């Protein structure tokens, strides 16, 4: 019964990880051949190297720029649309629709928005005057705004998913609770903090985990929007992009790629432990 799963997972998850751990001590060509062994200190050196630390920092920043705003916006929209109004289904559908945007679709849409020469935002005169960075050098080329712009496209793209899940979570909160609290004089905001949010706990935890995983594994949006630039700050080079990016300097060395990839594994491991330990405890179960 377990064999199919075990075989697939064994060949395509366990074995590659094990091999990557070994490859990570060597320097090789792009196919993992012609290897020169460098020893386990390659991991330590890589973890402390400029490129890796920068990429880790960018990855953390990217996660902070996408996960909390994504959660907050998703909850805000869900609460906004959680009323029995005529035509509310239309609005709910609109808010969910970004679930239909894949990484490539969303990134190309936003690329067209943000391009400083022929893009949409730069050709809306009053907007470009208000925020000169839109045109010069361009939101995706300015090291200060590039990561935020990529994060914006990612948040937008995940909005539908978050909205859908939080709405589903809201459905499960018994109305009597709200009614009773209202009768006791609790206002909307008070009810939100004391009733809605705690009971949304499991849903929010699930969304948090999914959004965080997506943030740490973001690749497509960076590849299509900035290619890891702008140089020389490499403002949008996350760890994943450092490993496999189109312009990365280690794409021809399967050994170094494996080193960085395995380090990413450990980062994610630490993150998962952190999330489950620090936040899982606070979740209320209805």
């Amino acid at each position: 019964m377990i064999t199919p799963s075990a075989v697939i997972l064994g060949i395509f998850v366990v074995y590659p990880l094990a091999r990557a751990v070994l490859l990570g001590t060597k320097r090789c060509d792009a196919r993992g051949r012609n290897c020169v062994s460098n020893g386990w200190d390659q991991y330590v050196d890589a973890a402390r190297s400029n490129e890796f630390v920068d990429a880790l920092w960018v990855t953390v920043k990217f996660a902070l720029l996408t996960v909390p705003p994504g959660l907050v916006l998703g909850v805000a929209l869900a609460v906004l649309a959680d009323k029995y109004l005529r035509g509310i289904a239309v609005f709910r559908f609109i808010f969910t629709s970004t679930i239909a945007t894949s990484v490539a679709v969303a990134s190309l849409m936003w690329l067209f928005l943000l391009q400083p020469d022929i893009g949409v935002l730069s050709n809306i005169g009053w907007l470009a005057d208000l925020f000169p960075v839109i045109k010069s050098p361009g939101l995706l080329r300015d090291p200060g705004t590039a990561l935020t712009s990529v994060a914006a496209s990612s948040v937008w793209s995940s909005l539908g998913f978050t909205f859908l899940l939080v709405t589903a979570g809201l459905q499960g909160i018994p109305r009597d609770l709200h009614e009773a609290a209202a009768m006791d004089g609790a206002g909307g905001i008070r009810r939100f903090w004391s009733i809605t949010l705690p009971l949304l706990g499991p849903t929010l935890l699930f969304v948090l985990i999914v959004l965080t995983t997506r943030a740490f594994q973001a690749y497509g949006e960076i590849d299509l929007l900035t290619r890891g630039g702008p140089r020389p700050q490499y403002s949008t080079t996350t760890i994943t992009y450092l490993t496999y990016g189109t312009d990365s300097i280690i794409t021809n060395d399967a050994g170094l790629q494996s080193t960085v990839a395995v380090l990413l594994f450990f980062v994610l491991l630490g993150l998962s432990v952190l999330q489950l330990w620090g936040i899982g405890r606070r979740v209320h179960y209805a």
Partner: protein
Amino acid sequence: MSDDRVTTFDTPTGWRAVGRYGLLVVVSVIVLFPVYTTVIAALKPGNKVLVNPLVPDAFTLDVFRDAWNEGSLGRYMLNSIVVAVIVTVAQVVTSVMSAYAFAILEFPGRDVLFLAFLATLLVPVEATLVVNRQTIDSLGWLNSYQGLTVPFLATAFGTFLIRQVFLTLPRDLRDAAAIDGVGHLGFLRHVAVPLVRPTIGAMASLAFLSTWNQYLWPNLITTENDMNTLQSGLRVLSQSSGVDRPNLVMAGVIIAFLPIVVVLLVFQRQLVRGLTSGGVKG
């Protein structure tokens, strides 16, 4: 979405209603803005994308036909659908089977093996890409449906979710079935699976979506353009026509976007039902 819980409490009236509608409209405009500008850009003939990005020039559908043909979008979409369906079905089957084993069957080392399964969830796909590509390459599966699907035919996530629900099956039910001579497979088919149908629905939707969205893997293992999925195909389109015909690329983006929106419209109810009653709410 279920309406049976609605009371007058939920229905704002008068100014509150107007205010809420207003807010909803404003937010909707913001959310739809990128889609709107993409549609406008696609509709602009003669590549006049620079002029007036907020107002369409004409309503010509030719560009969509051109994007479909020249961008081979039909072929790419077919590939995406085939790959997503295969992976979804396979993930459901393998997850149900292994979840059953972990929840119902007894065998030595069961719990240790389950932990090992869970551990694979922590491995990011990036750590496995290089080696997986070599494996697929040496199997001769580059540019093939096997290459695009086989590494993803099983998932510990699905196993975990479904096992959660199987664990709620009372023992007596299983014992009674055994007394009646029903084997494991029969029990699985007739009792266990119907029980978890909503969870399977949720899991399948997530699996379909995430496979549909795959970008890095198809990019990595296709060297023949016929076998691109929609996502890597969009990249090819934007690289080859992005300069001289941006309206074509934007049309391609809309073509990639619309079918899922339609699917969403049709399956919205099931999706929500699956997500509410499945493993999401603990």
